[in-house]
C-alpha cells in the first residue's frame, strides 16, 4: 500500500516537475536556446512571492500566483528584449548559452545578497496538511490541486499554440525565422513574448514548489537541471511529453527517497543519464 501511495505522490509531484520544464521546452522549441538562468528565475519568483506575502500577510500564497506570474512575464520580456535578442541571431550557438549563464550567476548572487542564504518556505496554512482518504489511501489535497493546475496550464498552453493566431505566429517563427519577416512578423518581438510566457509558467511552478519544499538562492541549479531533464526525457514532440517526463522524474525521485532517505534528486538524475544512454535519437527532437 505504501508503494501505491509513493507512486501516486510521485505522479502528483511529477506534474509540478513537468511545469518546471515546459517553460524551458517552449524556449528550446521556439528559439533553439537553452536558458541557463531558467532555474534562477524559478527561485526568484518564489522570493518575489515571499516578499509579497510580507506586504499582505493575510493573503493565501495561491492567490499570489497571478501577480507573481505577471511580474515574471515582465522580467522575461525584458531579459529577452534587452539581452538575449542581441545574441540569438549570431551563428555561434554558444553565445546565448554563455550569456544566460552569466545572467544566472548575477541573479543567483543578487538573491543571496538581498534575501540571504537561509532556507525559505511559503506557508499554505491548513491546505498544506489537508488530505483526502480514497480507498484507504491518503492523498494530499494540495498536491492534487497542484496537479490539476499543472494540467490546466498545459492544456491552456497547448490550445494557445495550436488554436490561436498568436500560436500560429510562434510556430511559424520557430520553423523559419527569416521567412516570417516577409509576412510582417518581427521575430524579436515574438521571442520577447515567448520568453515572458516561459518565465510566467516557470514562476507558477516556482511558487508551488516553494509551498511543497523549502528553497535557498542556490536552489536554482537543481531546478534548472530538473527542468532540463524534463525537456530531454519528454522530447516527444508535444508538451505532453514534458508532462510525462516530469511525472517519470517525480516517481523516480520519490521511489528513490523511499528506498534511500537521503538520496535527494540522485535517482531522478540517474534515470535521466540512463534515458540519455538508451534513447539518444529522441533527445534532439524538441518542438513547440
Amino acid at each position: 500500500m505504501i508503494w501505491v501511495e509513493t507512486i501516486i505522490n510521485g505522479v502528483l509531484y511529477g506534474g509540478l516537475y513537468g511545469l518546471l520544464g515546459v517553460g524551458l521546452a517552449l524556449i528550446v522549441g521556439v528559439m533553439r536556446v537553452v536558458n541557463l538562468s531558467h532555474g534562477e528565475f524559478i527561485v526568484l519568483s518564489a522570493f518575489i512571492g515571499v516578499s509579497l506575502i510580507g506586504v499582505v500577510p493575510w493573503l493565501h500564497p495561491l492567490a499570489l500566483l497571478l501577480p507573481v506570474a505577471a511580474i515574471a512575464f515582465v522580467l522575461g520580456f525584458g531579459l529577452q528584449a534587452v539581452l538575449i535578442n542581441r545574441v540569438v541571431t549570431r551563428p555561434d550557438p554558444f553565445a546565448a548559452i554563455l550569456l544566460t549563464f552569466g545572467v544566472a550567476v548575477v541573479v543567483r548572487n543578487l538573491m543571496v545578497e538581498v534575501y540571504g542564504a537561509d532556507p525559505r518556505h511559503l506557508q499554505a496554512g491548513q491546505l498544506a496538511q489537508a488530505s483526502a482518504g480514497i480507498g484507504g489511501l491518503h492523498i494530499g489535497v494540495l498536491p492534487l490541486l497542484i496537479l490539476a493546475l499543472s494540467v490546466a496550464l498545459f492544456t491552456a498552453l497547448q490550445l494557445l499554440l495550436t488554436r490561436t493566431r498568436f500560436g500560429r505566429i510562434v510556430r511559424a517563427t520557430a520553423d523559419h525565422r527569416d521567412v516570417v519577416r516577409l509576412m510582417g512578423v518581427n521575430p524579436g518581438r515574438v521571442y520577447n513574448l515567448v520568453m515572458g510566457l516561459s518565465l510566467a509558467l516557470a514562476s507558477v511552478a516556482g511558487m508551488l514548489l516553494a509551498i511543497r519544499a523549502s528553497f535557498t538562492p542556490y536552489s536554482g541549479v537543481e531546478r534548472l537541471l530538473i527542468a532540463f531533464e524534463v525537456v530531454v526525457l519528454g522530447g516527444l514532440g508535444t508538451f505532453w511529453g514534458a508532462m510525462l517526463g516530469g511525472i517519470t522524474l517525480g516517481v523516480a525521485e520519490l521511489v528513490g527517497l523511499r528506498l534511500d532517505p537521503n538520496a535527494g534528486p540522485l535517482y531522478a538524475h540517474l534515470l535521466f543519464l540512463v534515458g540519455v544512454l538508451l534513447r539518444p535519437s529522441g533527445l534532439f527532437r524538441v518542438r513547440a
Partner: protein
Amino acid sequence: MTRDRHAYRAWAIAALGVLALAAAPWVIGEGAQRFLSEAMLMLAMAQMWNLLAGYAGLVSMGQQVFVGLGAYCLFFASISLKVAPFWVLPLAPLLCAAVAAIVALFMFRLREAYFAIGTWVFSEVVSLLVSKTERLGGERGIGLPTARLVDPRWLEPLTFWLSAAIAVASVFGTYALLRSRVGLGLMTVRDNEVAAAGIGVDVWRNRFIAFVVAAAGCGLAGAVNFTATLYVAPGFAFDPNWVVAMMIIVIIGGIGTLEGPILGVIIYFALREALTVVFGLSAGWYLIGLGLVAIAAILFEPDGLWPLVRGRLGGDWLSVRREPPAPLRMTAAAPAAADAATSSPRGLGATRE
C-alpha cells in the same frame, strides 16, 4: 621575418617567467605564494575549459566533476597508502582521464547546450554519490593527515612549484596539442564540421582527445588545490563555481586564444582583490560584478579582451595559426600579399569565428 622576432620575444619572456617562478619561494612570503598558486591552478583549469569550448566546440558545465574527482583521488590514495600526497599526485589525472573516456562515450551523443547540461547532471550525480559514501567522509568531507609526512617548510614551496608547473604545462601543452594534427583537426571541426568530416577529419576522435586531456588537466589542478587546503568536502570539490570561474576567465580574456585565459586570470584575480580586499565587498557582490563583466564581454567583445591587447602590442605571441603555403609565382606584390595573409586575424587563426 617579424614573426620570428615576435616568436623569440615570446620565448624569452616565457624563459624569464619560468626562472622567476622557480626562484619565487625564496623571495615572496607564504601568503603571496598561496595566492599565486591559486591563480596559477585557476589558469590551468581555465585553459582546459578554453581547449574544450574555444577549440573543440564542447561547452562543459560539469568540468567541476574532474576538479573534485582529482582531489578525492589524491586524498583517498594518500590516506590508504599512507604516503605523502605528492607521491600519488599522478593518479589524479589518470583517474580523471579514465572517467572522462567512459563518460564521453555517452555524453558525446548530446550536442551543444544538451552536452553542457548533461555533463552538469553527471557532476551532480558524482557529487551526491560522494556525499553518501562514508569512506570518503560523506557530506562532512575528509582531511589530509598524510600531509604531515612532508617537511612543513617545504609544503608551501612544493605546492607553489607544482601549481606553476601545471600552469605552464597547461599553456604550452595546449599549444603543442593545437599545433599537432589533432589541433588542426579540432579547429577544422570548429570552423565547419560538415566540411571537416568531408575531408576525412575524425570529428569524434579529435573531440574525445580534447575532452580526456581537459579532464586530466582539471583533475591535476584540483588535486593540488585541495592538497594546499588540506581538507576536501563535496560542497567545495564539486562546486559549480569552479566552472563559473573557468567560464568567466575565458570569456573575459578571449575564448579560442591561448593568451586569453592568461589575461582573464589576471583580470579575475585583480577584480577579486580590488572588490573584496580594497572595497570590502562580500563574495556575492564580487560574483555579481564578474557576471556583469562577462555579460558585457559577450554582448560587446565576443572575442574577449586579448584581441584588443594584441592589437596594441603587435605580434603573434602564442598563435597556433599556420603559414599558408608560399605562392608559386613570386612577383613583386607576392611577399606583401603573403604577409597580409599571415597577419589576418581570421582564416586558420586561433581567433574564434
